[in-house]
């Protein structure tokens, strides 16, 4: 049980020469492939998020079908859409880290010679991908029901902006949700009430993004003259918010993991 001597380090240089070079890109791709293969096999995240989103739409429809003929639903459509996306996303984000937890897989990841932010980037990318797949299914239904005017409950006389502007706003929102959500899901995954903890952390941190997103979505859905300026301003604000918080999450991930 002696104290270490300085010459004990002598094996170091020879040991490092013979190992293969590490490639963060290769590790990132491996993490993506693994998450996608797992989801493809279990369909846990996409199915649960998709079904949940559709159920929320049904509930919206039932709840709003009795509002009367003088209520313009398009004035609240942006809020409804965001509400559905946020709660649907939280369901998926909770599950995304559980796969790394139930058999100690996160320990195996942490044991590997991989930069911790690469794990964050890969997880956030797959979460974003799954969120977009779900939105690709659910949002068109929402559009038809509450924006396009094809359903009898829509009473407003509006000219919505083009669908691709809606897609831009949703993409910006999804990037923020996936980035922050991945960080917060990592914090909450080891806690007892992880679903509750994630919700408690997620909403306050996301609050500025939710505000600008609802304004951007509202500008597109209600449309009309002068909506473009507000839409692009809000998109720029969302982009700035995403850049700041994702950079912070990237930098903090090693600290959050603890090793």
């Amino acid at each position, binding site marked *: 049980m002696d104290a270490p001597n300085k010459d004990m*380090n002598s094996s170091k240089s*020879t040991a490092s020469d013979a*190992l293969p070079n590490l490639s963060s890109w*290769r590790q990132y*791709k491996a993490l993506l492939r*693994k998450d996608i293969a797992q989801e493809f096999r279990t369909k846990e995240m996409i199915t649960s998020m998709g079904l949940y989103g559709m159920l929320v739409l049904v509930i919206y429809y039932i709840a709003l079908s009795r509002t009367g003929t003088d209520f313009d639903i398009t004035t609240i459509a942006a809020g409804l859409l965001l509400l559905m996306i946020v709660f649907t996303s939280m369901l998926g984000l909770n599950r995304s880290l559980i796969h790394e937890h139930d058999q100690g897989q996160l*320990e*195996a990841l942490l044991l590997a*010679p991989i930069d911790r932010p690469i794990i964050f980037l890969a997880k956030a990318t797959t979460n974003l991908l799954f969120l977009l797949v779900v939105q690709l299914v659910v949002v068109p239904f929402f559009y038809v029901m509450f924006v396009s005017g094809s359903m009898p409950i829509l009473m407003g006389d509006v000219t919505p902006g083009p669908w691709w502007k809606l897609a831009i706003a949703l993409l910006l929102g999804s990037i923020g949700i996936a980035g922050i959500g991945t960080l917060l899901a990592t914090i909450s995954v080891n806690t007892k009430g992880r679903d509750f903890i994630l919700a408690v952390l997620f909403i306050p941190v996301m609050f500025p993004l939710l505000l600008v997103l609802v304004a951007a979505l509202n500008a597109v859905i209600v449309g009309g003259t002068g909506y473009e300026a507000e839409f692009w301003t809000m998109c720029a604000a969302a982009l700035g918010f995403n850049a700041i918080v994702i950079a912070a999450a990237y930098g903090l991930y090693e600290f959050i993991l603890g*090793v």
Partner: protein
Amino acid sequence: MSKTAHVSDSKQAGSANAEPAVAAVPAIIAHNVSRSFGPRKALDSVSFKLPDRAFLSIFGPNGAGKTTLLKILATLLPVTGDGTAQVCGFDVKSEAEELRRRIGLISHNPLLYRDLSAEENLQFFAELYCIPNPKERIDELLEAVELKHRRYDVVRGFSRGMTQRLSIARALLPRPQVLFLDEPYSGLDPHASDILDSLIENIRDQHTFVMVSHDLDKGLDLASHALILSRGKIVLYDRCDHLDQTEFKKVYREVVGLGVS
């Protein structure tokens, strides 16, 4: 056990993959290693040296700090205070990433993805370690752990023994210099236990092993060095050929009888 193939961890000289030449210096040096969880000290100023290619068995009652020590050496937990630990000559704190390329962990938890196949699991970890020609290495390891015929089956359908064998293959993938084993025999049937024995025997002289165990006979049988921890402190540490096993077992029983605070 003769069926168990030999796991070739010796590498071709001169290849990019060649095993690092490690001089006869300690593989592990722990100096005043402490770790607290809140007010509780799980490890209290633990110091020891372990020579290269040695097999250390760590014994102690539940809560003695065995797994904590293993996790600190495997870079999975940071040290509290100013203690230091070096594994393969690399500091566990400041040179963790370099060190992680040289260590493997076999735990009672398989650390595998249950929805992926045996091959997909190994392929994934091979990519994380950027192993060149991973297919060749995966074939070799699947053969060694007798799982080649189940390579395309998802791990969810594996028995405990098969999962543990695959976990061993995962740990051996990057040809680690030091292998940490956290109660690796836990829950294994006799056949799986024999395969693990055989695998360890085959690679015994190519790696340094640190094993946490509750099985005194098995642990002493494998070990070149033995260590007893109790309440986060080393009670006894010595080479097995210097130990009087009867005396050692007596000390162990006394320690276990003490329990934990």
